[in-house]
């Protein structure tokens, strides 16, 4: 293998918050490729570059505190260094924050023992100076016996020298003596090097101290936490709405346009109702996802996310989760898709998985249309407690049931399937920093495009399949039928209609008939789709009052009794609290856990929960109201 043919492989190693990602972005620009390491949930990122005409691949390895692997992140680093996923790196670049060099030397010592050509890059040298610290870099170079380079990653200072260095790892000096192995010996080794090279130790960051006096104050800090979380929720929930409405309208117009441009028939139906609607189902998530990631990365990079987790950790710790899970569960009130993506900030894999598995229980905004339909149609409009109406109380009860269920399931999972993995809880509280805008933009872009590629394709495929189930086989409507009746006729005879009928024995104990069965099948596309599907089945003139009146009046032809009794309504509401009727959530779970196993598990356990809870709800309400 001649070095001129294969690109040089350079691995970036460093602890979280060392400035590794900023350096990676500065070196590779937007040319990074993002993916998953096979079999684990850890993301890999690499970028192809040229250093002085020499081709190289820079690999951004996950942040680590030690080479002795405890977490999957650290295992990935171990396996990359062993050359398991791809050829072994040709050289390693250890990235260290100049302000906490003492800590970084402990990891550097471990890396040097692996005998790769290694160099050390010190980041945040500007912050070091601002805090009154001074390091003698030439002396550090001599003491370590490897090249040392100081950079200010986000301003691009020192990068040219670094690029020249990175072009020729063959010429890097190797340390004459390897550092010791045990932690106490490594610590002594680090201390002796520091004694040589530190001219002045940096003082504590005054800005960080001043901000933390407020942000972590028992009262002010708690209030700020609540304010940040409310704002966060409001942004995800409400501010994305105009953009989502615009996308919805755009999708509608595109469908109409497609219909008018294409000859009427199956192909036009496929394009308008299958393809365009499917693409719309994907794109409609983009405003929320872009907003979510922009906020998440901003809070994380500024340094607040760790503080927020610090404030709420005790509460989440009670149920076996950790502080960072709070943000994810909160986002899930808007939508489980961004909520599940937000779990990326949780380091412990078991905690992350537990959070992912319960996120769908938080009442997302897609449940509101079906709640609104059923509550509006069947719950009397009466005041109960002062200004509180019965309808509002029922809605609140549905929200609370979901949240309580999420906490209980998380606690149960952490005591059984996802029992403690022996990972200690520790979390760095990094100094506050102003993240460079370019870094934020590239992080958001990377995450959003990964969503489009990895989850979007699945969502699109499932939309098309659901469209086909609702369309085929095609049947002629009886002569003289109105368009609404014809559409109802076609739906009942479609595969989805047949599935609805076939499901009836399984859902009859919950008080559901085949029509609700069809709605449940269709709502896999997205929960709110059940409303438009019911409108189609009932051949209703509109999805508001028309549908409401139709379902109120519906009578089972065999028994002569009403289909929607209070018991059925309660049962259906409860079903939607629990059931994971959402292919987008499943697709994102698949993407985030890198396997179909966990989405399958989540779907099954939530379906089982939904069935049991609906069964109980139906019987309870039926007994209370004196029979079905």
């Amino acid at each position, binding site marked *: 293998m001649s070095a001129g043919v294969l690109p040089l492989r350079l691995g970036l190693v460093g602890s979280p918050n060392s400035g590794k990602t900023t350096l990676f972005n500065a070196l590779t620009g937007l040319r990074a490729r993002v993916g998953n390491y096979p079999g684990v949930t850890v993301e890999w990122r690499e970028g192809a570059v040229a250093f002085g005409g020499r081709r190289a691949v820079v690999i951004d390895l996950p942040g680590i*505190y*030690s080479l*002795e692997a*405890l977490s999957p992140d650290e295992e990935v680093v171990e396996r990359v260094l062993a050359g398991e996923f791809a050829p072994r790196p040709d050289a390693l670049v250890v990235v260290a*924050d100049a*302000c*906490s*060099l*003492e*800590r970084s030397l*402990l*990891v550097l010592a471990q890396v040097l023992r692996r005998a790769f050509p290694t160099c050390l890059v010190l980041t945040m040298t500007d912050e070091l100076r601002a805090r009154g610290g001074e390091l003698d870099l030439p002396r550090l170079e001599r003491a370590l016996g490897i090249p040392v380079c100081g950079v200010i990653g986000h301003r691009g200072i020192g990068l040219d020298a670094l690029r020249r260095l990175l072009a020729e790892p063959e010429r890097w000096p190797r340390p004459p003596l390897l550092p010791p192995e045990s*932690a*106490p010996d*490594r*610590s002594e080794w680090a201390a002796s090097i520091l004694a040589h090279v530190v001219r002045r*130790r*940096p003082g*504590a960051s005054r800005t960080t101290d001043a901000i*933390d006096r407020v942000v*972590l*104050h*028992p*009262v002010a*800090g*708690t209030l700020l936490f609540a304010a940040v979380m409310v704002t966060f929720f409001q942004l995800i929930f409400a501010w994305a709405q105009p953009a989502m409405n615009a996308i919805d309208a755009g999708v509608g117009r595109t469908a109409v346009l497609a219909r008018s441009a294409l000859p009427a028939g199956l192909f036009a139906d496929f394009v308008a109702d299958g393809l365009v609607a499917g693409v719309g189902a994907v794109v409609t998530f983009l405003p929320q996802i872009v907003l979510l990631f922009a906020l998440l990365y901003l809070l994380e990079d500024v340094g607040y996310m760790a503080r927020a987790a*610090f*404030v709420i*950790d*005790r*509460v989440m*710790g009670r149920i076996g989760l950790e502080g960072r899970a709070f943000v994810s569960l909160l986002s899930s009130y808007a939508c489980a898709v961004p909520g599940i993506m937000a779990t990326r900030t949780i380091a412990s894999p078991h905690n992350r998985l537990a959070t992912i598995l319960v996120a769908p229980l938080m009442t997302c905004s897609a449940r509101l249309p079906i709640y609104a339909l059923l509550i509006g149609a069947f719950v009397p409009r009466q005041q109960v407690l002062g200004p509180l109406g019965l309808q509002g109380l029922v809605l609140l009860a549905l929200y609370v049931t979901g949240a309580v269920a999420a906490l209980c399931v998380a606690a149960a999972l952490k005591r059984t399937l996802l029992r403690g993995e*022996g*990972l*200690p*809880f*520790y*979390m*760095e*509280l*990094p100094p506050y920093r102003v993240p460079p805008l370019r870094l934020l933009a590239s992080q958001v872009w990377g995450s959003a495009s990964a969503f489009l590629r990895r989850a979007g394709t699945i969502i699109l495929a499932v939309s098309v399949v659901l469209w086909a189930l609702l369309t085929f086989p095609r049947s002629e409507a009886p002569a003289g039928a109105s368009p609404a009746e014809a559409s109802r006729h076609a739906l009942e005879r479609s595969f989805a209609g047949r599935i609805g009928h076939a499901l009836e024995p399984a859902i009859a104990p919950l008080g559901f008939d085949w029509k609700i069965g069809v709605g449940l099948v269709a709502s896999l596309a997205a929960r709110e789709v059940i409303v438009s599907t019911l409108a189609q089945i009932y051949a209703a003139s509109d999805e508001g009052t028309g549908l409401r009146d139709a379902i109120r009046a519906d009578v089972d032809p065999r028994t002569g009794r009403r289909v929607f009794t209070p018991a059925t309504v309660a049962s259906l509401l409860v079903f939607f609290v629990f059931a994971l009727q959402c292919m987008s959530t499943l697709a994102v779970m698949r993407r985030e856990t890198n396997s179909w196993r966990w989405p399958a598990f989540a779907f099954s356990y939530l379906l089982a929960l939904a069935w049991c809870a609906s069964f109980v709800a139906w019987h309870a309400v039926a007994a209370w109201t004196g029979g079905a």
Partner: protein
Amino acid sequence: MATSPPTLLLADLEPGSDARVEAVEADTPIGRRLLDLGFVPGTPVRVLRRAPLGDPVEYELRGYRLCLRRSEALRIRVQRSDGGEPPQ
């Protein structure tokens, strides 16, 4: 836990205290990780503050800050160094 005279654990310290690490629970993955994080015997540690709900607690050592839950801070034996020689 050890029975030898007054054993002081990191978890026992109040915010504002300065201490030196004396020993870390040995031979468990958690103990080894605490060592890797820098809780090596002899290291000066300052207790900065408790979270509003009492746990976790923020510490400063080796030029950086991190928080540990009580369950982890119980694994680190320390010696007070308040008023003693200034850390390094």
